[in-house]
């Protein structure tokens, strides 16, 4: 194959999925752009944003990959059964690890900004926002990933190729939306300083 044909094939294969995740990223960006007030009210929150968004991708992308592999190997059945131990274990592990990483990110941001002498919200506020956001986005992304992987598999699609674009597209939108809800909730309940 010539360089040109390799490049053309790679370009055409990637464009639809990338285009889709762009739309998701722009929607997430518009929400983030509208969060000026919240970002100002909770100093340090912006510093935590990349870590919180990346955790969604890392944890739920990995959940999707695990479920895909499990389906291919016949370890899990492509239907939602709460009694299924493997499905329960995989989703519970994703939620637990996602929450843990979110809290670690919040505490790290607080510690680093404090050490640098920068303005930063209370550690309780940052942890509360991260936890609530992590929980909301975790539940939403678990549902999305499980449904898309199972539905895709039952329709004869390779779930491995579905997981990446779906997680990156919904992960950003769900991630920023849950952050917005979480920060408003925590501010309304009196956090902030």
């Amino acid at each position, binding site marked *: *194959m010539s*360089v*040109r044909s*390799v*490049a053309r*094939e*790679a*370009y055409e294969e*990637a*464009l639809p*999925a*990338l285009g889709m*995740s*762009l739309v*998701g*990223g*722009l929607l*997430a*960006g*518009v929400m*983030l*752009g*509208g969060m*000026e007030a919240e*970002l*100002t009210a909770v100093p*340090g929150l*912006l*510093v*935590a*944003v*990349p*870590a919180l*968004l*990346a*955790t969604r*991708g*890392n*944890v739920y992308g990995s959940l999707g990959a*695990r479920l895909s592999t*499990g389906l291919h190997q016949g*370890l899990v059945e492509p239907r939602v059964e709460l009694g299924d*131990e*493997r499905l329960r*274990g*995989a989703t*519970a*592990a*994703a939620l*637990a*690890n996602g929450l843990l*990483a979110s809290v*670690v*990110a919040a505490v*790290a*941001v607080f510690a*680093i900004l404090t050490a640098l002498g920068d303005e930063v919200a209370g550690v309780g506020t940052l942890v509360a926002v991260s936890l609530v956001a992590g929980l909301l986005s975790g539940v939403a992304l678990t549902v999305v990933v499980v449904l898309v992987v199972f539905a895709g598999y039952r329709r004869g699609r390779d779930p491995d190729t579905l997981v*990446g674009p779906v997680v*990156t597209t919904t992960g*950003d939108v769900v991630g920023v939306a849950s952050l917005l809800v979480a920060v408003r909730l925590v501010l309304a309940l009196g956090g902030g300083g």
Partner: protein
Amino acid sequence: MTTDWTVRGITRAMLPVLLVMTMVEVGSGLVLGSFEAELLQYPTLLVLVPVTIGTAGNLGSILASRLSTAFHLGTLSFSPSDEKLAGNAIATVALAVTLFPVVGAGAWALQAVLAGARLALGTVVLVSLASGIALAVLAVLVTVVATYIAYTFGLDPDDVVIPVVTNTCDVLGVVVLFSVVQLFVI
């Protein structure tokens, strides 16, 4: 069975890498925090943040998974004249050149409709395109180096390269956006 599907087993496999990547992302957050004043002054730039980070990571992970597959099939050699390598690298840059002007125009238009534009359309498109091209080149370099290192150490590139590349490109996304904003906006 190689995978243990319990919370404990999955956590043991996942948590160390996850925490390292979380700290790397906190590092990119600190870069983001260092130009928070500009981002809040021009929210259109804030709109660009998730999409720039996400697209950079996606470009890297798509390239990484294609190189991994070529590597598993034995059709990849690490030389600049290798057609797979050169073709995929060109495609990555071409994708960035196609998509990032759309990102910039989209971010500007959405922000103009929803909140009113404080930056000119041309500026936002320029910031987006310049970031995109720089990121595509960096994504190619990072991916090729990471795939090569995995290959040298006998690791399966699928396991190692994709998370490393995705998170590295996330960080580079913020750093590049920061540099480009310094160049063209401030």
